[in-house]
């Protein structure tokens, strides 16, 4: 998530209110900050330089038509042109008087333009009602969202009593939609309604009013303000112009104008305040008041002006602007902000200094995939890290109490950076519901009081974030020293964290220090100083497994091809001499035997038929394999409960096909081949000669196919029979030499061969002990091997340091667990069983995107358990560590 272009004092110059009146025309009401200096172009213009040669560059184009008239035309009468020098020295606070007696009023020039001209250009036609209005006056860009009076000329809405909100809190702080929408017309709270709709609604609202005009309405008419327009004057860099306008418009301009519209509709707020401000300005003009004095006066007497000040002050520093408008109807509060991401998923490029100090993580706080709940749903396994002191937030909440304050305070008290939302919900079950916890968390995050992080844990590793902002180190060091006076100084602590990564708790001198150290960690997280070092895994399929799967696929394929050819023979015979199919089926069964033997001998899992080599030549064959659904079901079933031998397979195959009267072992195929045969013979009635020729041809083809099949079978038989070793990763048998391991990118979405690999690995895990189980001695050996063995892999060079960096404590623990169990075969078997059962469950984490550290929370397991299971699988995992 890239950081958006944000407003700052350099690209956000001012905010100005302009109104239009039906009789008196437009008026420039107020602007803030008071002194908006003319934005300087990158090149100071120099009228003397304007050459007229053909290849003037951009800057010359700029200069050729120098803006000498800018100041010259401040006032319309030519005689009143003030001296340029005088203007340059003008402090923009006092009034100037030209020789001709024309008064130059400081507030009547904004950003180098006379307000008389600006007020005209900034009151666009009604076509812009509630639309983006954007005018660029090189280099300024004026952006706004003009609001017009409804067509009937009356601002005020007829109040609907049932929708009347509590006047004191119509726009609560947590209400992220402007209040204007909450009760105007009860339309869906959707910012992008069509303007025409709104207009219609407005008109309809007026319709039921009695034709006799009330006093209020007459007053409304008299006010005759036809539109108001809160204009944002920006000075963006060329390339950021569009982004800045977009972001300001969606998050600030639109919302604030809607809030004003709401107040205007309810109590004629904007017009009343404007009148007040204009009156003050007129009077000050007479009195030649200093601009600074006047502005103070206006800001203290008008909440509209004050709100513009707040708005500018907050938005230009990218804070949350909280507006308080004292309307006749009561206090209206409203907050706007530009939401900024609180984390980055990758390091910003070299120039991205603005993003320094952001928390670096790939953890996704929002549940978006495969959850059918509403989007923007916070992951329940995240924790809330408050960005300010808990006490401070509580006082902040209590300063503006309402019905939810108590619950929120409760929430703040329960929320710990080490507890997931789910756990918080459980712990405070009597006070807070899960939904509340999430809602509050979202609320806190939206209003920048907290961020969502994976719960902090002493066993996890934290490293110095490569994105931390070292320019802040001096201040941060001082703050750290104040907050944790007894802890090591910040630079030392960072140095310690940055050396070799290890579990955080190992940095902690004793158990008693644990809570303080966790607070320190939270502090570091808050400042973006550290980030969690996570482990991401992919499944590695070792050559041994690849070979095994290939081999059994081939065996299956050949066996099936044999069956097909026999079936064809049988069908041919049946059609020719209508002899019994029984005998051929027997033959088929017989000839299948060796392959079956191979299958049963090596104890392979049965494989999907449609996975087979697509080189099965004839079309009928392909059709058959496609229409193989019963056996497909069978295979998928047997994948879950893999038979130990092929004989089991035969049994299971027979039972579902029993209704089929043909006693062939290939029941499901027979009806098909029967339907296929007529197709071959039906189309015409060929002559005997043709028939003979056709028969000979078919025979030739069949012979050839049979020969090829034989060749393949012999070639296959010559191949080395796959052998399962205890550690496929180090199996360097000769027949595996040329093969390289295969990496499955996303185990959950694996299809085809990859899914076969996965299930083959699953078998290995289940039988890692059982295969050697023939002899108890071997079993014991492997058990002892396992006692070291499961982490024996850890030391293996192939696994390298990635997973080898499981912390020592974990290893010891596993060692202890296993050590106690090593002499008990049953427990071993159970353990293998557990690993094998967890294997498919964990697939969804083996995609290089889900941190293994978070499995325990997500699966609601004990951390130790999850780690042990993962360690047991580690031989088949390729691990990468980043954030």
């Amino acid at each position: 998530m890239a950081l958006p272009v944000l407003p700052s004092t350099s690209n956000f110059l001012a905010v100005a209110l302009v109104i239009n009146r039906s009789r008196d025309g437009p008026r420039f009401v107020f602007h803030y900050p008071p002194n908006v200096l003319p934005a300087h172009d990158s090149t100071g213009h120099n009228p003397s330089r304007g050459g007229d040669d053909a290849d003037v560059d951009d800057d010359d184009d700029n200069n050729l038509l120098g803006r000498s008239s800018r100041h010259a035309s401040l006032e319309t009468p030519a005689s009143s042109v003030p001296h340029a020098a005088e203007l340059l020295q003008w402090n923009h606070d006092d009034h100037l008087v030209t020789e001709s007696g024309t008064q130059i009023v400081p507030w009547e020039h904004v950003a180098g333009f006379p307000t008389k001209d600006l007020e005209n250009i900034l009151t666009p036609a009604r076509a812009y009602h509630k639309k983006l209005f954007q005018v660029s006056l090189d280099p300024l860009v004026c952006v706004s969202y003009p609001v017009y009076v409804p067509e009937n000329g009356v601002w005020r809405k007829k109040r609907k009593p049932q929708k009347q909100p509590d006047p004191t809190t119509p726009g609560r702080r947590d209400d992220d939609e402007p209040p204007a929408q909450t009760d105007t017309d009860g339309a869906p709270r959707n910012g992008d309604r069509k303007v025409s709709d709104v207009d219609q609604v407005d008109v309809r609202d007026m319709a039921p009013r009695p034709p006799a005009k009330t006093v209020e309405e007459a007053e409304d008419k008299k006010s005759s303000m036809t539109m108001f327009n809160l204009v944002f004057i920006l000075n963006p860099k060329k390339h950021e112009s569009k982004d800045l306008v977009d972001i300001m418009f969606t998050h600030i301009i639109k919302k604030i104008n809607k809030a004003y519209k709401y107040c205007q509709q309810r109590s004629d707020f904007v017009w009343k305040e404007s009148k007040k401000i204009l009156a003050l300005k007129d009077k000050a003009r007479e009195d030649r008041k200093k601009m600074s004095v006047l502005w103070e006066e206006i800001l203290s007497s008008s909440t509209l002006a004050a709100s513009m000040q707040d708005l500018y002050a907050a938005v230009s520093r990218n804070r949350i602007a909280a507006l308080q408008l004292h309307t006749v109807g009561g206090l209206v509060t409203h907050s706007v902000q530009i939401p900024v991401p609180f984390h980055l998923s990758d390091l910003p490029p070299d120039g991205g200094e603005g993003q320094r100090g952001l928390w670096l993580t790939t953890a996704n706080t929002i549940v978006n995939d495969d959850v059918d709940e509403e989007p923007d749903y916070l992951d329940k396994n995240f924790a809330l890290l408050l960005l300010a002191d808990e006490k401070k937030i509580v006082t902040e909440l209590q300063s503006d109490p309402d019905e939810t304050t108590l619950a929120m305070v409760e929430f703040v008290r329960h929320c710990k950076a080490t507890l997931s939302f789910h756990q918080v919900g459980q712990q405070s079950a009597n006070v807070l519901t899960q939904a509340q916890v999430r809602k509050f968390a979202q609320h806190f995050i939206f209003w920048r009081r907290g961020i969502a992080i994976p719960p902090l844990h002493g066993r996890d590793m934290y490293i110095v974030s490569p994105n931390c902002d070292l320019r802040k180190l001096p201040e941060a060091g001082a703050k750290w020293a104040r907050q944790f006076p007894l802890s090591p100084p910040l630079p030392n602590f960072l140095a310690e964290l940055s050396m070799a990564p290890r579990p955080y708790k190992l940095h902690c001198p004793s158990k008693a220090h644990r809570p303080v150290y966790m607070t320190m960690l939270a502090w570091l997280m808050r400042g973006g100083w550290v980030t969690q070092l996570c482990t991401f895994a992919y499944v590695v399929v070792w050559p041994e497994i690849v070979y095994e799967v290939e081999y059994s696929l081939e065996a299956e394929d050949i066996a099936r091809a044999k069956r097909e050819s026999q079936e064809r023979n049988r069908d041919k015979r049946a059609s020719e001499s209508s002899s019994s199919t029984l005998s051929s089926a027997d033959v088929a069964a017989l000839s299948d035997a060796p392959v079956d033997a191979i299958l049963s001998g090596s104890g392979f899992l049965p494989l999907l038929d449609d996975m087979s080599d697509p080189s099965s030549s004839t079309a009928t064959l392909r059709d058959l394999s496609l229409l193989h659904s019963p056996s497909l079901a069978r295979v998928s079933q047997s994948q879950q409960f893999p038979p130990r031998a092929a004989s089991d397979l035969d049994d299971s195959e027979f039972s579902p096909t029993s209704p089929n009267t043909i006693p062939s072992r290939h029941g499901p195929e027979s009806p098909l081949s029967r339907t296929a045969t007529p197709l071959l013979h039906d189309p015409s009635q060929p002559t005997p000669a043709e028939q003979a020729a056709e028969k000979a041809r078919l025979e030739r083809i069949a012979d050839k196919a049979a020969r090829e099949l034989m060749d393949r079978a012999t070639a296959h038989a010559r191949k080395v029979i796959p052998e399962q070793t205890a550690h496929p990763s180090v199996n360097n048998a000769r027949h595996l030499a040329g093969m390289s391991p295969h990496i499955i990118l996303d185990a959950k979405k694996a299809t085809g061969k990859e899914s076969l690999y996965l299930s083959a690995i699953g078998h290995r895990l289940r039988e890692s002990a059982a295969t050697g189980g023939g002899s108890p001695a071997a079993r014991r050996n492997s058990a002892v091997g396992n006692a070291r063995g499961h982490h024996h892999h850890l030391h293996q060079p192939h696994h390298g340091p990635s997973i080898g960096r499981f912390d020592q404590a974990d290893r010891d623990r596993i060692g202890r667990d296993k050590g106690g169990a090593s002499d008990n075969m049953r427990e071993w078997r159970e353990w293998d069983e557990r690993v094998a059962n967890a294997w498919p469950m964990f697939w969804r984490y083996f995609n290089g995107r889900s941190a293994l550290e978070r499995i325990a929370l997500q699966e609601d397991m004990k951390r130790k358990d999850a780690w042990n299971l993962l360690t047991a699988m580690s031989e088949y995992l390729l691990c990468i560590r980043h954030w």
Partner: protein
Amino acid sequence: MIQGIFYARFFPQEGTKIVAQSPPGCIVPVYGVSKPCLFDFSVLQEYIIPRKAFCNRYMTVVDPEGKHAVLGFPVSIPSPRYDRNEFIFNFGLVVECGVVDQIPYERVVRRLAVTFAEMEKQNYYLSQDETRNYNCGSGGGGPRSRESYCRRPIESLLEIIKEDLNNYGECMIPVDDANTINMKLFPHHMTPPEVKGWHVPVAKMKFADVVDPTWDLTLQRVITHIDGVSDVRRIAFAADVSLELTQLALRHLLFYDTILLLDMFFFGACYAPRPGIHDFLANRGGVVDECANYVCVGTAPSASSGSGSGSGSSPGAGIGERGDGGLDMSGGLGNSSGGSGAGGHRVTNYMLIKLMTTFCVGKTVMEWLKGHMDAGFDVLRFVDVRRLVQFGVIKGYLYRMHKYVVSKQYLAALATGHSRPVAGGDPLQRYTDGCHTFDQIITEQNLTDAEIMDKLKTLNVPAGDLTVFYR
């Protein structure tokens, strides 16, 4: 794409009028064209010919639908020659909003305004035209054309401009006997980041093939030393150019996106994976094979340079070959790359992935190398480690963990505002605020890492004040 182009004028009596437009009917309806206008002219006309205060500047406005932007440069020429002493016109473009990058068109608009304003000032090109077309119009304020030379009407001129810019991105249009308008749409490049002395530039193209004698002399000197190994300071030294000029020249190359800036490679440096490494595992776009071509030792140089040119043609590839083509391992390790004992051996994709993914926080390249050697894989025989690391860094799979040294007392002094506690003290002190990497100290002080550490030990600070950390 330019949707429409127009010439608007302010007439003292009729007000703002569109005099010429292309395509016809794009701004105001004309007889015979049924296609609707791009926007409502009446709404926008006050922004096309604005008040005097806004004239003579580039001005744009977006129509209420937010679909089109009108880019114009209203020009006002004050002269007693004209009615009301002023001639106001605007040559404007209409482009789609949001779809098109408007920045390149700004120059076009400026150029049109400047050229026609100048032509009007010199020989009343526009007002003449007006008198001819509107003979019965304003009663003879403008000077009449005496010579009736044949010239292109503005409407067709506009059409050519629009068509040429849309189709070719540039145009060269003779307006009359004496004047030609040359315009081109230039893409907008971002200001490149600063080039520091400790950056290592890597060429993305073969400069030797494109350089010609008209290039800047400094640039010509500098590019011959860009080899993907030398840092900027070294290049400056080798090219006998001052460091500042070298930086400037390289920044120029950076502006046109023809070089990349990397960090210096040391066997003692730490590199760690970034999330982007997923793409490497997935071999997205055959990146592992690209990597193999780049890093494998012993593959014939011709093959490797062939792959280099191949990658140069594909847009995703960021690495060009170095000019010399030879492989020089930096770091002076006794490796067998010279001897072709392992000639032509291509490391498997899995092994490359293994190598790339085993970089780890807090592990130096040396330690990484040793780990693989111990595991029985003689990395140096098969892989150019520097190139592997650079490949990872360029593609965003790895990041360099930089080394910093901070002095706590210096930090404390900075926090309280006394930024320079010991003026003219040890030259190393100013590096101890945490913002300066060891790379910087190495290049600026011309010291090695070990020498810096030694010097730091003798730095006049309390014991335990200095801390070295990595980021």
